[in-house]
């Protein structure tokens, strides 16, 4: 067979097929990937230091970031990465659960294959199991949680806590209240339209987390251009094209014919700029925001008319600024119409931790942008805090759509494990083994949580099973003292939708990996690899 294949393809291709070569190898690769992320699962998860190809250092336990920067090459492992990315995009949290669970499923599949099951039987078993899981998950939803007030801080925090705690354990209370404040502030009338882009994060080195705050409005990391540094209750005019004398795009030369023309040439230009700036000042605007360069002459007149000048070069930032202030961006420097002017409560330049920032505040009528100002001692801490905030904000978005919650702290997983196991006994075919393994795979979560917290995993799992068997379906692990406890007393809740998608994507990814029985890799383009390592060196 190999011979035929070889004669068919160009020399240098790789071709792998069959159970041993393809399926088991694929499973092995996925397992390796999940062992990397697994230790980061849960509140006591460890951080990873990842140095990416651009030499940037990440210190994080956010699985989405880790796998993103890892540059996974193995084709099968890439499927897992894609599943986690799908989860990250859909929900914005729970990426680690996806990878770790998929890895666990595949490990179980390997055992089944060694037992003699065919991958297709495993797949059908897994598919049945995941459908059952979805059903059970719906039953496990905490009663009364489907109705929530997304503007109630308490309710928001209770749903967000677990997601944030898994990133920044011990600091979740501070962070959650910051995130909740910011989210509630920008939440539109119809919460489904909540846009994550409206919660900004400004990272400023120095101080500590307790110095962090939420600013209603924006924080720009630039200084004001002119000498006006503070203004209150002002109208804003936004110009995209820069505040300067208009110059022609085409290269041209002004021809001067007489002495007067020469003398008047610069005067007319000056007069023109003054006229324009005066027009803006007359319209009532007190702040000019420019999307491009601010000419010296224009600045001179802005100072004369006591206008504050800000420069925002990023187009996205400018758009957000317009959203915050409710102004319409004008292309050219001209007299703005009253409708085009925006309004700010205050614009001020402040020094925070050695950096000068411009704080644009707008507190009236449900402003649309809020900024979480994060403080921390190093860049990597700040980056990690930012990821935690991102996850929190994404969770908020998810709960705006579907606010149902399930017990966290591995309580749901143990219950799922128990019920899916029961379900497997009712099946008659060979796939009951696959379903049983699927159920066992849920144990991975309490096991990892316990292991990462330095507890005895076996003890915990067995006592969890005992509790659940006696009907306490909401008993999970309390990591602080290391015992089993009812989650409703600990207030650890996960969003139903996060768990649902994570488990679904994980099962899908596992099935996809199992379906593959041949890998054909064509010869990589280009010349010979420069950094070919010695064979056998790269397995460790």
């Amino acid at each position: 067979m190999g011979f035929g294949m070889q004669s068919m393809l160009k020399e240098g291709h790789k071709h792998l097929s069959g159970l041993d070569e393809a399926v088991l190898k694929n499973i092995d690769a996925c397992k390796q990937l999940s062992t990397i992320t697994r230790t980061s699962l849960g509140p006591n998860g460890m951080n990873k230091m990842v140095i990416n190809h651009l030499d940037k250092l990440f210190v994080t336990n956010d699985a989405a970031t880790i796998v993103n920067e890892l540059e996974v090459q193995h084709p099968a492992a890439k499927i897992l990465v894609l599943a986690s990315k799908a989860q990250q995009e859909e929900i914005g949290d729970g990426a680690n659960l996806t990878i770790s669970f998929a890895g666990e499923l595949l490990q179980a599949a390997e055992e089944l294959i060694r037992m003699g099951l065919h991958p297709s039987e495993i797949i059908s078993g897994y598919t049945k199991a995941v459908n059952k899981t979805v059903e059970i998950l719906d039953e496990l939803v905490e009663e009364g949680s489907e109705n929530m007030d997304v503007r109630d801080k308490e309710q928001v925090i209770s749903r967000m806590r677990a997601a944030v705690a898994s990133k920044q354990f011990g600091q979740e209370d501070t962070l959650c209240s910051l995130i909740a404040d910011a989210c509630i502030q920008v939440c539109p009338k119809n919460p489904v339209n909540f846009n994550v882009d409206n919660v900004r994060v400004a990272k400023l080195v120095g101080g500590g987390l307790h110095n962090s705050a939420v600013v209603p409005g924006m924080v720009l990391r630039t200084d004001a251009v002119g000498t006006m540094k503070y203004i209150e209750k002002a109208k804003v005019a936004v110009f995209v094209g820069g505040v300067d004398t208009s110059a022609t795009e085409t290269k041209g030369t002004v021809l001067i014919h007489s002495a007067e023309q020469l003398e008047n040439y610069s005067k007319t230009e000056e007069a023109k700029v003054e006229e324009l700036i005066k027009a803006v000042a007359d319209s009532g605007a007190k702040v000019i925001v420019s999307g491009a360069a601010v000419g010296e002459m224009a600045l001179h007149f802005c100072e004369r008319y006591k206008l504050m000048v800000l420069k925002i070069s990023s187009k996205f930032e400018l758009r957000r600024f317009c959203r915050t202030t409710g102004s319409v961006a004008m292309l050219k420097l001209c007299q703005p119409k009253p409708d085009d002017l925006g309004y700010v409560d205050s614009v001020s330049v402040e020094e925070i931790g050695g950096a000068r920032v411009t704080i644009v505040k707008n507190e009236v009528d449900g402003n649309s942008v809020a900024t979480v100002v994060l403080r921390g001692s190093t860049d990597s801490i700040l980056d990690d805090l930012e990821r935690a905030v991102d996850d929190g904000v994404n969770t908020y978005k998810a709960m705006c759509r579907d606010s149902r919650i399930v017990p966290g702290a591995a309580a749901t997983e143990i219950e799922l494990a128990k019920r899916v196991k029961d379900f497997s006994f009712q099946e008659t075919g060979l796939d009951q083994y696959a379903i049983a393994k699927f159920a066992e795979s849920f144990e991975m979560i309490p096991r990892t949580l316990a292991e990462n917290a330095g507890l005895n995993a076996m003890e915990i799992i067995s006592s969890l099973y005992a509790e659940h068997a006696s009907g306490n379906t909401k008993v999970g692990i309390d990591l602080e003292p290391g015992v089993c406890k009812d989650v409703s007393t600990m207030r650890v809740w996960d969003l139903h939708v996060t768990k649902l998608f994570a488990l679904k994507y994980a099962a899908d990814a596992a099935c996809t990996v199992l379906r593959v029985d041949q890998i054909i890799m064509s010869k990589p383009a280009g010349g010979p690899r420069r950094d070919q390592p010695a064979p056998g060196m790269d397995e460790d």
Partner: protein
Amino acid sequence: MSSMLQPQIILLKEGTDTSQGKPQLVSNINACTAVADVVRTTLGPRGMDKLIHDDKGSVTISNDGATIMKLLDIVHPAAKILVDIAKSQDSEVGDGTTTVVLLAAEFLREAKPFIEDGVHSQNLIRSYRTACSLAIEKIKELAVSIEGKSIEEKKTLLGKCAATTLSSKLIGGEKEFFASMVVDAVIAIGTDDRLNMIGIKKVPGGNMRDSFLVNGVAFKKTFSYAGFEQQPKKFLNPKILLLNVELELKSEKENAEIRLSDPSQYQSIVDAEWNIIYDKLDKCVQSGAKVVLSRLAIGDLATQYFADRDIFCAGRVAEEDLKRVAAATGGTVQTSVNNIIDEVLGTCEIFEEKQVGNERFNIFNGCPSGQTATIVLRGGADQFIEEAERSLHDAIMIVRRAMKNSTVVAGGGAIDMEISRYLRQHARTIAGKSQLFINSYAKALEVIPRQLCDNAGFDATDVLNKLRQKHALPSGEGAPYGVDIATGGIADSFANFVWEPAVVKINAINAATEAACLVLSVDETVKNPKSESAQGEAAASAMGGRGRGGGFRGRGRGMRR
């Protein structure tokens, strides 16, 4: 080919370097302690300076932790975190950079035996965080407020803070002299929080005592054309015009061109050009200004013109200086000479040009808005003045923070000993593993007084025991006792005016704990090979950097033995 058919599982790109687990954690800790060993000896009044010679051949002598860390060019990813916290301390409070690095490394060093014994690092982290918040609360409790004092009293109090910072620096010998200078400068700029309004000018020559404070702005005389000699060099209450205009005979615009059909018109064009410049000069004179400064060039024609009319002018003034003059004198920088109203002119009590060393200086004294101050530093060698500037920067930051937050604590290791005692006491009330961890945290805090003693050549164990005894007194009267550098014993730091702003300590402990927790929480490092684009530029530095990194580790190991 057969080996190709049975490949190892290549999960990650070739050349990717992964390391994980406990050894990884221990090696990170080792790297951090090695880095801290470098700055360790710079702590305190008797700390030694470091001479750093970089690959470009420039030499820096410094005692400032942040400066040293920045120049060290550390490549180890974990040790880089220490550099970051030093920078963060520098930008947030300005001083205490050595302290923060030392504390972080000491926390890690204390954690190492636990890690080796198999304690899960999350347990350590949790205890460290608790200890950190306890320590910060204790500092806040112990801090003494200087709020509500009269300005004179406040001045002396702030002076003490500045003196404490300066005593650990190269210019420590003249600390009173500089401390009062720094306090005056900071009070001059007032509550408006703008550091760039304090200028520091360096003039080699003379000695430190020749340094002086200008209540206004001073800058080095700019390049001048002929005619400058005739200009008056001293004014009382002059009006000052600040320009962003070129006063030179020059083509008006780049894109203008003159075409003449009638050659007789040629003279008129030439005249017109002269008219333009004369017109500008006239307008400057008419404004009534006696001092004209411009960011752009002032040519020889203009220089002569002004000299004839008893006006002082200076062209090509650095933008920073010009802004400072604007803020000090209350003027605004003009981009056009048309329509100069009185409002935009500034003024000051005395303007003069003075000889300082072998440089001429333009000095604006007694400015009305008084938001600026300039310190003119004198001293022997270049490196000496550089270091003096850094020291003054630290002192200025300290005084600013002290003014803003207005609480101080006892220095000289007193506050560290007191927190350490408090934490030990607190630890006894805890059951379980975290008692040990908080104890070790408390022990790590003692590194500050211990290092102070070591650097001064005292018997650290002896002094520390005395301190412990004092701090353990149940009455609590021993709380302000710290190391006495003068006698080698212990003394009441508070009574001896060894003071530090509380915010420095709070930030240092916070940042050090955060960094230590971050290092402890890492159990795996994955290093991807550099991509093509990054490879080119980084290749050279990576080679040098790696060599140096290797040397580091080797040295660290040798020192710890």
